[in-house]
Every structure is written in structure tokens, then in C-alpha cells.
């Protein structure tokens, strides 16, 4: 459980923080010590556990530090830039910054980035990147311009992935955002355009990023107060092309969008982010920790004196400027264990194991001709395919998608599917989706059904209903609405899977006879004795119509197939009922009629099943009848055209009840028979028997 501990202030000395707050807080080579650069002239080294400064260095009056001081972890020296171009390097023994090593560079520095295990990088304002050593060898070397005019670097971060330094920086130009990923070893720079989605005029306020094996997960806090996530592949498929990235909503409205104070976001670990800002426009600023997996607020802390809207996180400490002083809030996230409480705790899991994709066996993809024998071979094929792709651009992107899906982890698939859906105008769209969704979960690509609903693509909806085991009830209900309301003529054009429907019209003549017989027999129950005689007679006035009505299918075959998909889908009554109330009454009646028709068809044979390959079961039919009536009874009961149907259903229930009561009566006799049987087996205390051994 994530928790924020009691805060403490680092120094009583008021830092000369400007209106933008501090320049930066950076780690030093000792775990407990941090370099704080204020927005004026001073760099202070703090020891956090002692809550006191160890050293302080200032540049000359008139000079100004433009880039926060960092520690070169390889040498233990500190590096700072003042007046945009002047680089200073010093160590703990130095007292005066004037006397230390100095190098004047030919271009303005945006930031120096340093992480453990690699040499620091210098990022210039024009987007060029240099290693510190290489730069110091020739400080006056020419620095190229990477980004365009008026493009401004907004944020940057430096990672080491598998010992390869990777640099990401975000630029902004006229409200458009671009992400650059620089693989420092291979010197590949990839540019991505960040698509902002529908809300085009939102401004990104803060960025943070975390990295796993294949992706940089870039999280951004927008001016609408929501956190979005963008997955950026570390190794781009095609570095030359300008690629676009889609963002997905991670958390909704964590801070008030139009707060006047700054907001900040930082990723704490895989599942947690810390957000600094006001939850409501009027309220005081808060530091809150959110669990992005469960979308829950874990803890929060009010900061009444206001902050600069800056947040740094190193090790277990969150740094921020609270009022005028630098405040440290230790953050802890202990793994709480249900298993521990239940006493079933096993050894803690190997941290490397969680990356394993949880999908079904991709070696045997359904409905797709790519039969991979083993992973070794598949990798080879994939590589060959890649070459083919580059040679023949006409290979449809859908095939590419399929091949990537077959190999990759959950996150990568998500990215690919999203990308694919963004394109979505391919001729074989449905077949690809069909191949793709097999084995996927709805929650993995929530946009898919949304788009299909919007476009009233019943074919795709049917596919999704058949394949996804986890469709929310609201979506199921929306599908049902479309299936009931869509015109017959527009249905004609679609290519719906008719597997679950059987052509009932073929032996309808024979059926009629059967039904009339059952009317009389009714499992030994005679409806004539019933109190419902009156209504029966009322109905019997038009017996011809009635039989006709009940034996011909009230909906066309294609619609029946669609409705069957609904019947097969999983649901929870509690969540489905409220949505069912939204369906118009005439559609409810139509659906009820269809269900009643199915029931009659069911009861025609002894096994109580429908013909066909994958028909709805009797239980599904009965459950849906009950659900529909429960949700809409008051509406349906007022409708004159539904009256006959309701009476039929009423009779049906009555006859069922009487059948069961008859069965209850028989049960006693059966039990006696069983007892007799047991007595036969129980041979008493003594007997002489024949035994044969085999």
C-alpha cells in the first residue's frame, strides 16, 4: 500500500527561488545527497537524512545559472551551466566556482542529463545531443540544429535501457507536441508527433516517463486535469518516417484543469504516480498518489502554503518547494499481501516474470495461416517478413499487425492495435479484426467496440460479442439497441455470421401439428382446469392467428443471428438491468417475441435444445425473458400489442409451475424406489454368494 510519510524541511535557509521555483533537484553519487539548484546563482548539496546542507557554491554576481547542476557519476564531479553557454565542473573540495574548470560552448545548453552508469549528456536548445567527454575534448565544436524554428524543448528525460543510453525530449510548436527519442549509441533519432485526440486545444502541463524493455511510457498531465499515457517504442520500426503516437486516458480529472497554480506529475513506480496540484479549482494544493492500475487515490497530503508546481522523485523521497522552503516527503509502497493474510504466502516472485504475456498460445493462431512451429523459427520468419515489408510496400498493414501481435507483449499489442484502428480504412478490415480479437480481451482495446458502435458496424459488433469474454454490460446493451433498431434493408447488406441461426421456416408445417398436440397434453397438466379459462377463451377466438404468430420467426434471420450473439454474451444481472430500461418499448416487445418464439422452438423436442451449430440454450432464453420483463414490466404491460405475448408468457410460467409441482409429488415415490433399491444391495448380516475371479 502506497503511503506518504511525515514531511520535513531540508533547510531553514530560504532559497532564492524565483517565480518559476527551483531550477532542479538532482541526485549526487552518494545515495543520501542531492544537488539543489535555485533559480539564481547557487547550488547547494544536501544530506537528506541529516536535513542539512553539506556544501554550497555560487556563481559571480551578474552571472546566472541556466541549467541545474548534475553529478557526473563516473567521476564524482559536479557540472553546471551558467549564462547558457559556460560549463563549470568542480568537486567537493572546491570552494569558489570562479576558480574551477570552465569551458565555453558554441551553442546554448538546454540541460545536462546524468544517470548512474553512463557519462552525462548535454542537450542543446536546438535539440542536438553530445556526450560530455566528447564535448569537452572540443568545446567549440559546431552544434547542429535538430528541431525546427519556433520549436521549443519542453521536457526531457534520460534512461539507460540494457546499458544503452536513451534520451527522450518533448518539443512544442504552435500547440503541437513532438517527441524525439535518441538512441545515443546508435545515434538514431526518431521523431514522433503526439496526437492530442479529440480535445485539440488542451495544453500539456507536465510530463513524466518510465521505461520497460520495449517502451517508454510517457505520461502527461493535460490542462483538462487528466493523465494520459503514450507508449513510445524504444526501437522504432522505421526511424526515417515521421510517426504519430496516440495517447490513451489513464486517469480522469486528478487535478483541476484551470487552477492558477502549476501542476506536476511524476511516476513513482510501475503502478503509482504522484500528482501535485489542486484537486478542485478553489482548494489548496495537494500532493496525491494514485494507483493507475486500479485507478484509485492511494493517499494525499495537503500543502497549504502553496508550491511552485515542481516535483522531483529520487529513491524514496519526493522533493518539492512548499512555501519558501524545500520539503521532502518520504514515499513508501509496501507490497501488501492478501496471501500473507491468508497464510498462503509463497516465496516472493521473481521480478522478471511479470513481463510474460498472458495470452493464449500464439503458436497456433485461429483462422490464420501462419503456423509457427517454434519461437526460433518464428523470429526468423518475422525478420524475413520485415524485409519483405520494406521491399514490397503493398503487403497490407493488417498482416504486419498480425505478425507483431503474435510475438509481442501486451503493451506492444495494445500500441499496434490502436495504431491499426486509427488507420482503419482497409478492405479486409473485418477479417483482420476477426483474427485479431480471438484471444484478446475487451478491456485491452476499449476503443474497438466504441468505434463499431458509433459506425453501427453490426458485423464487427457480433464478432466482438462472440470473442470478448469481458464486455461491459452497458456496451452489450448498446449493441442490443443497435441490433433491434437497425433497419432490415441495411441488415441485408451486412455479412453476419449465421452459425447460430437455424432456418425455422423449413418444417414449420410439421411443427404446427406438434404444438397443437402439446397444448392438450402439457405433461399431464390440463390448462382447461386452470383459472385462466377466461383469457384462454378470449385467445381462442383467434386461434389461427395465434399459432401463426408463434411459429413464424418474428425477426429476419440476420437479426436473429445478431440477437443470438447477445444471448450468448456474458453479463451480470445487477449491471445489465439498469441499461435494459433504456430500450424503447416496441423493441423490447420485439425481442420478447423473438425469445418466446425461441422458447417454443426449444420445447418442441425432448432435449429442449434448438437445432443449429451454436444455438442459444434454454437457460439463456429464459434468463433474458426474465431480465427483460423485470426491467420493463410497467412499460410492457401498458402496451396493447404486447398483451397477447404477456398472456402467453403467463401461461407458460403457470404450466411450468404445475409441471414442477407434479414432479415434486413424484419425487416422494422415486425416493421410495431408491430406498427399495438400497435395501436390495444391503444383504443383511449373513449370506452365501457366488464369487468368480477374473
Amino acid at each position: 500500500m502506497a503511503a506518504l510519510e511525515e514531511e520535513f524541511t531540508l533547510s531553514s535557509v530560504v532559497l532564492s527561488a524565483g517565480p518559476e521555483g527551483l531550477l532542479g533537484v538532482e541526485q549526487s553519487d552518494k545515495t543520501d545527497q542531492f544537488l539543489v539548484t535555485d533559480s539564481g546563482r547557487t547550488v547547494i548539496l544536501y544530506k537528506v537524512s541529516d536535513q542539512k546542507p553539506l556544501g554550497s557554491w555560487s556563481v559571480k554576481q551578474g552571472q546566472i545559472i541556466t541549467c541545474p547542476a548534475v553529478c557526473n557519476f563516473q567521476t564524482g564531479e559536479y557540472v553546471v551551466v551558467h549564462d547558457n553557454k559556460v560549463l563549470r565542473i568542480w568537486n567537493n573540495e572546491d570552494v569558489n566556482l570562479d576558480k574551477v574548470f570552465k569551458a565555453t560552448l558554441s551553442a546554448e545548453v538546454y540541460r545536462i542529463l546524468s544517470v548512474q552508469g553512463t557519462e552525462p549528456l548535454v542537450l542543446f536548445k536546438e535539440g542536438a545531443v553530445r556526450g560530455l567527454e566528447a564535448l569537452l575534448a572540443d568545446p567549440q565544436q559546431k552544434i547542429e540544429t535538430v528541431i525546427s524554428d519556433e520549436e521549443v524543448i519542453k521536457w526531457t528525460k534520460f534512461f539507460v535501457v540494457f546499458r544503452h543510453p536513451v534520451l527522450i525530449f518533448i518539443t512544442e510548436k504552435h500547440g503541437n507536441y513532438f517527441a524525439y527519442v535518441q538512441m545515443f549509441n546508435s545515434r538514431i533519432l526518431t521523431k514522433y508527433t503526439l496526437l492530442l485526440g479529440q480535445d485539440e486545444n488542451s495544453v500539456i502541463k507536465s510530463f513524466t516517463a518510465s521505461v520497460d524493455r520495449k517502451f517508454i511510457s510517457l505520461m502527461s498531465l493535460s490542462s483538462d486535469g487528466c493523465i494520459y499515457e503514450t507508449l513510445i517504442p524504444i526501437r522504432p520500426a522505421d526511424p526515417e518516417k515521421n510517426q504519430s503516437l496516440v495517447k490513451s486516458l489513464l486517469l480522469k480529472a486528478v487535478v483541476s484543469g484551470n487552477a492558477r497554480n502549476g501542476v506536476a506529475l511524476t511516476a513513482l513506480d510501475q503502478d503509482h504516480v504522484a500528482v501535485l496540484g489542486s484537486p478542485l479549482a478553489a482548494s489548496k494544493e495537494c500532493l496525491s498518489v494514485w494507483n493507475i492500475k486500479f485507478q484509485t487515490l492511494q493517499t494525499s497530503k495537503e500543502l497549504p502554503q502553496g508550491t511552485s508546481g515542481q516535483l522531483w522523485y529520487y529513491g524514496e523521497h519526493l522533493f518539492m518547494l512548499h512555501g519558501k522552503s524545500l520539503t521532502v516527503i518520504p514515499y513508501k509502497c509496501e507490497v501488501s499481501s492478501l496471501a500473507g493474510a491468508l497464510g498462503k504466502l509463497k516465496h516472493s516472485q521473481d521480478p522478471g516474470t511479470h513481463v510474460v504475456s498472458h495470452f493464449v498460445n500464439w503458436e497456433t493462431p485461429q483462422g490464420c495461416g501462419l503456423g509457427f512451429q517454434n519461437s526460433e523459427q518464428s523470429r526468423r520468419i518475422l525478420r524475413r517478413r520485415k524485409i519483405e515489408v520494406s521491399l514490397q510496400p503493398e503487403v497490407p498493414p493488417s498482416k504486419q499487425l498480425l505478425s507483431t501481435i503474435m510475438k509481442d507483449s501486451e503493451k506492444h499489442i495494445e500500441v499496434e492495435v490502436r495504431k491499426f484502428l486509427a488507420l482503419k480504412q482497409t478492405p479486409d478490415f473485418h477479417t483482420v479484426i476477426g483474427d485479431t480479437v480471438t484471444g484478446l480481451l475487451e478491456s485491452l482495446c476499449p476503443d474497438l467496440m466504441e468505434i463499431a458502435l458509433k459506425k453501427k458496424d453490426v458485423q464487427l459488433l457480433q464478432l466482438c460479442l462472440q470473442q470478448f469474454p469481458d464486455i461491459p454490460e452497458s456496451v452489450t446493451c448498446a449493441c442490443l439497441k443497435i441490433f433491434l433498431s437497425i433497419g432490415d434493408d441495411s441488415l441485408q447488406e451486412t455479412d453476419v455470421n449465421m452459425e447460430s441461426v437455424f432456418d425455422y421456416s423449413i418444417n414449420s408445417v410439421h411443427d404446427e401439428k406438434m404444438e397443437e398436440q402439446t397444448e392438450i397434453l402439457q405433461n399431464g397438466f390440463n390448462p382447461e382446469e386452470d383459472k385462466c379459462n377466461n383469457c384462454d377463451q378470449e385467445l381462442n377466438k383467434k386461434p389461427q392467428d395465434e399459432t401463426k404468430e408463434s411459429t413464424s420467426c418474428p425477426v429476419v434471420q440476420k437479426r436473429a443471428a445478431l440477437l443470438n450473439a447477445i444471448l450468448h454474451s456474458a453479463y451480470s444481472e445487477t449491471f445489465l438491468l439498469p441499461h435494459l430500461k433504456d430500450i424503447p418499448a416496441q423493441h423490447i416487445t420485439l425481442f420478447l417475441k423473438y425469445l418466446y418464439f425461441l422458447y417454443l422452438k426449444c420445447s418442441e423436442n425432448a432435449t429442449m435444445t434448438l437445432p443449429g451449430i451454436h444455438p442459444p440454450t434454454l437457460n439463456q432464453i429464459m434468463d433474458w425473458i426474465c431480465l427483460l420483463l423485470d426491467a420493463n414490466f410497467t412499460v410492457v404491460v401498458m402496451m396493447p400489442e404486447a398483451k397477447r405475448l404477456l398472456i402467453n408468457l403467463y401461461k407458460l410460467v403457470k404450466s411450468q409451475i404445475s409441471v414442477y409441482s407434479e414432479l415434486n409429488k413424484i419425487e416422494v415415490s422415486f425416493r421410495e424406489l431408491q430406498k427399495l433399491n438400497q435395501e436390495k444391495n444391503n444383504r443383511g448380516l449373513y449370506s452365501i454368494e457366488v464369487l468368480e475371479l477374473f
Partner: protein
Amino acid sequence: MGEFKVHRVRFFNYVPSGIRCVAYNNQSNRLAVSRTDGTVEIYNLSANYFQEKFFPGHESRATEALCWAEGQRLFSAGLNGEIMEYDLQALNIKYAMDAFGGPIWSMAASPSGSQLLVGCEDGSVKLFQITPDKIQFERNFDRQKSRILSLSWHPSGTHIAAGSIDYISVFDVKSGSAVHKMIVDRQYMGVSKRKCIVWGVAFLSDGTIISVDSAGKVQFWDSATGTLVKSHLIANADVQSIAVADQEDSFVVGTAEGTVFHFQLVPVTSNSSEKQWVRTKPFQHHTHDVRTVAHSPTALISGGTDTHLVFRPLMEKVEVKNYDAALRKITFPHRCLISCSKKRQLLLFQFAHHLELWRLGSTVATGKFLVSGKNGDTLPLSKNADHLLHLKTKGPENIICSCISPCGSWIAYSTVSRFFLYRLNYEHDNISLKRVSKMPAFLRSALQILFSEDSTKLFVASNQGALHIVQLSGGSFKHLHAFQPQSGTVEAMCLLAVSPDGNWLAASGTSAGVHVYNVKQLKLHCTVPAYNFPVTAMAIAPNTNNLVIAHSDQQVFEYSIPDKQYTDWSRTVQKQGFHHLWLQRDTPITHISFHPKRPMHILLHDAYMFCIIDKSLPLPNDKTLLYNPFPPTNESDVIRRRTAHAFKISKIYKPLLFMDLLDERTLVAVERPLDDIIAQLPPPIKKKKFGT
């Protein structure tokens, strides 16, 4: 294979006594079990849970406590106020010593094993020093107000916890004074009970005392401060027993509702060093009170009023799939309680305090009918079975063993102190019984009695290790010879077998090999090579004089007595190995017999199957079906011959306590259905199943 007429007998009204105490010995991997009738049984868990020894019960000796001390010395104490030590070699009681504190309710051996502590009715806790051959009273602890029902030593041996009525006391062993007195809450679900009995305590090395009581609670106390730390309400009835694992990371409690709960010390969170006791697993293997539990390194052991001894393996502790990995329920003794007179078709049933003699009935169905009768048919009875005799023992001691002679004219049985021999006379339907008086002094107590096939000789294995041969003629008897045990050994002989021609006598002890004696020459003929597992049954085949021995690991050997070596068949079997399903059976073979006309057949049975081994057929390998309950149908003779193997098994009769061949075509099977036993037990605590 041929058909048999089977007398299916279910009137053996045997009810095992309830289990009172169990004590597990880690050193020897043995379990001592005491029953409510005072019987003490020793199970060897290493030898496939075989009940290798037993000490007969006594009416006045209700054992309340049982413990191992000084390594492998076994002590018991009971309501007669005596502490007893058992001689595990000679299978008798070494001595009994009055503790002079009234009935003894509890006993515990010190962690070092050198001291013994008993808790008495008068509230005293008495400390005894264990000397090499006896125990010696050392001193009393501060006397308490009421009886001491449970005791536990701190692993360091400096303190003890004593559970009494309504409170737990902590004593300092050095001073003998009570350090703390912790009052147990009488409240039970808001209702104040009259008394709260602390049925069990366990003292852990960190100073925690765990108590179980009659209010259904398991409570954790801090012995340093005398305060209650934690309380678990686990049952609506008494929690009667507790046992802690040696590592102190898990313990087990048993309740009067028949439930056994497992508690484990588990980390509060992953990777944290802070641990807490959590109730992890409930087991319901009993219908009645679980009076006692034990915790072996790999299993939870429980026993109670419903007479089952249950071994529930802890799967996380069991590494290989073997005997230890299976749940095991032992209900019936691993020895034969029934003997049979083939000539007169009589069955002698042995109970704790009496013998019953029954004559089997008959059917009009002749051989002809039998041929036409199908498997499983019940034949019409022309005469029902008769209860001929009910012979009550004199005195409070349980019967150890009994036997009826093959001719049906002699009955012999023995208790711990007396040997009885009776002569039976049959005149039409009347039967008269005459006791043979003046038994010689050496025939005081027998562990096993056997008559020769012609009923002229009686063989008695005495508990001093000697084998006596007695000549029977007319109404008198004459002592012929005594085979004395080899010098230095005192091991008692538990199993006897005599050859049908009366020339050979085989005797087996609990651990050493089988000795074969020549009865004509009255000398030791040979000793069968020793085997790791105890003998469960043996018999000598007619004509060939092959000795067939079954061991507790389910191995069967055939040893030729004249040749003094294993037979070729036995060697073949050992080379090929038994079928894996045969080896996985979990009850020992308790009886072996032979077919007089078919020398290749060996008949044997355990509690769940009856088997005829046909030595002329090939042995089954692990791929063949060992047991086929259905007759081969629509198969040609060729296939049948090809698939036929040596083991012909029937599982129709179970639980099977005895099976023997009466004549060529007739078998007698004695079953004891579990339902019939349960019907005779006191009703269990009623638990609501439905509603609130």
C-alpha cells in the same frame, strides 16, 4: 478361474475403542496410540504405517496421557493414578508406579527427556526423575486449586505451563512456584459458561503460551507478562487437543466437532520478517470428538472417539510421491481377530473381553447349482448361521489372542496374566465346554496361539520370547518342548505359522527375521534372511513346505523351508517387481492361505481386497490392468490367455477383516462395514447444516 461359494459374514460386531492419546516419536518415526480401553499401539510410520506392536488394555487403566521420554522410552499415565512404562522389546508393562495425587490427567516429558511431569486430580504437579530402569519422584510444585488437565514445558526446560479449570499457571521449574496465573474467559459467545476447561497448552520458545479450551477458543498468551495476546474462536464446542511442530512454525488443534485446524506462522507481508499465527486449513476427517492430535514433520495426526487414526500429510512438506503423501485413515487393527475351524465350519471372533463362536449356515444349492450360478448371485439359505457360544473372560484384562483348533474341539485364549484352554464337545445341536485346568506356570501369557492342522499340537508364543509346544490328547495336554530365544534377545514373537504336515513351525518377531523350527527334531532349522520391513502375515504351503511371507511394504516372498532358500518364483517376482498399484495399497496383508488342490495358488487379503496369486501365470507389468472388476466379454480365448496375469483380485468384500478357504469351493469372508461401527458410537455433536 473357477467359482467359489462365499459365506459373506457381517455379524462380527467388532467396534474398535476410541483413541485417547497419540504421541509421536521423531527419533524412531513411530507413533504411540492409546485407546479408551487402555490398549496402547505402536505404529511404525517408516514401515508403511504398520501397527507393529500392541499392549492389551485393562478395564481399570484408562490412559489419559502418553509420552515418549529418554529417547525411545514410552510412558503412560491414567485415571488410576499410576505412571507406567512399557517394555517395547518384550511387549509388556515394565512397572506401574502410583503418583499419589489421585487420577492423573496430564503428563509431559522435559525437553531433555530426563524428567517427567504429571498433573493430578488434586491440583498437584509432580516432577519425576527418569532413571535408567525406573522413575523416581523428585518433588511437588505449588499445589493448585483444581485438577491439572494439561502440561507443557518451555523448550529451555526452565518453565512449564499448566492448564487447569478456568486458568493457566506458569511455574518456575527451579523453585517450583507459580510465576503467573492467567484467568481464561468463561464467556462463550456472550453467554457465561459454568467453567472453562483448559484442555491443552503449548509453551513456545519465545515465551508464548497457546491454550485451547472448552469454550472453543485458541488463545495466545505472553508468559512474561501473563497477558492475553490474541484469541481465535474456532468452534462452537470444546477444543480438546493441541500439538506444535518441532520448528514451532505450525501447530494443530482438534475440536469436539471433529474438525482439525492447522495454524501456521506466516509473514504479515511478503518479504517481511514480522510473522503472525494464521489459521490456515480446516480438516474434517472425523465425525466425533478429536481427543488428541500430533504433529510429525510431514503430517498432522489426529484421533478421537470415532476410532479412526488419521494421518493428513502436509503437502508442502512432502517432496516425493510416496506413502507419506497420501491421506491415511487407520480403523482396524493390523492383526487377525478371527480364527476358523474348517472341519466344523466354525468362526471364533475375538473381542476385548469376550469370545464368540459362530457356526456358518448352509445352502441347498449343490455343486450343480453352483456351476449355473452367476457371479454375485446370492444363494438361498437352507440354514442360517448360529451363535453357539459367548465366552466372557474373567478379570479386567483384555484378550491378547485367541485360536480355535481346525477340528473345532479346542479353544485357547490368553490375557496378560492368564492362559485359558477349553475343550468343546458337540452332541447334535448341544455344545458343552470344559476348561482344561492346571495350566503350567510358564503358560501365563501368550502373544500368539496356534493349533497344528491335525489339532494334536498347540503352539504358544509367550511374551518372554519362548515358543512352547504342547501335546493335546483326549481332554488332557502335555508340555513337549520350549524353544528358548537366542541368548541375549528378549524379542517377543508375534506371528506363528505351522506346516500342514506338522513338521515345521515358523515364528516371526517385530524386527528380526523369521525363524523356522523343526518340530520333529525340536531344533532351529533355519532363519529367513532379515528384511527391512516387519512381517504382517505368513503361512506354510502344503506339500512343498514353502513359507510365504508378506511384509508391510507389500512385498511377498516365498521361501522354501527344505531347501533353505527363496524359491525361483520368488526370485522372479523380486527381479520383475510387483505392479505399482499393488505396492500402493495402504493396508497390510493380514492373512495368507492355500488351496489344497491347486498348489500354484496363494490366497491372501488385506482390508480392501482379496487376491489369489496364480504362480503359473505371467506376472503383470505396470502397463497391464491389475484389477479388472468386469468379466472378460466377447474376447477370444487367445486374448484372454494373453491378458491373464497372476493376480486375481476381488474388491467386493470390504472392509475385509478375515478371509479363508473352508474347502475347495468354499470361502468365508468376514466384513465389518464402517456404517455399522458408526451406528454403535455415541452420537456426535449435532451441527446445524441449514438455516440459522
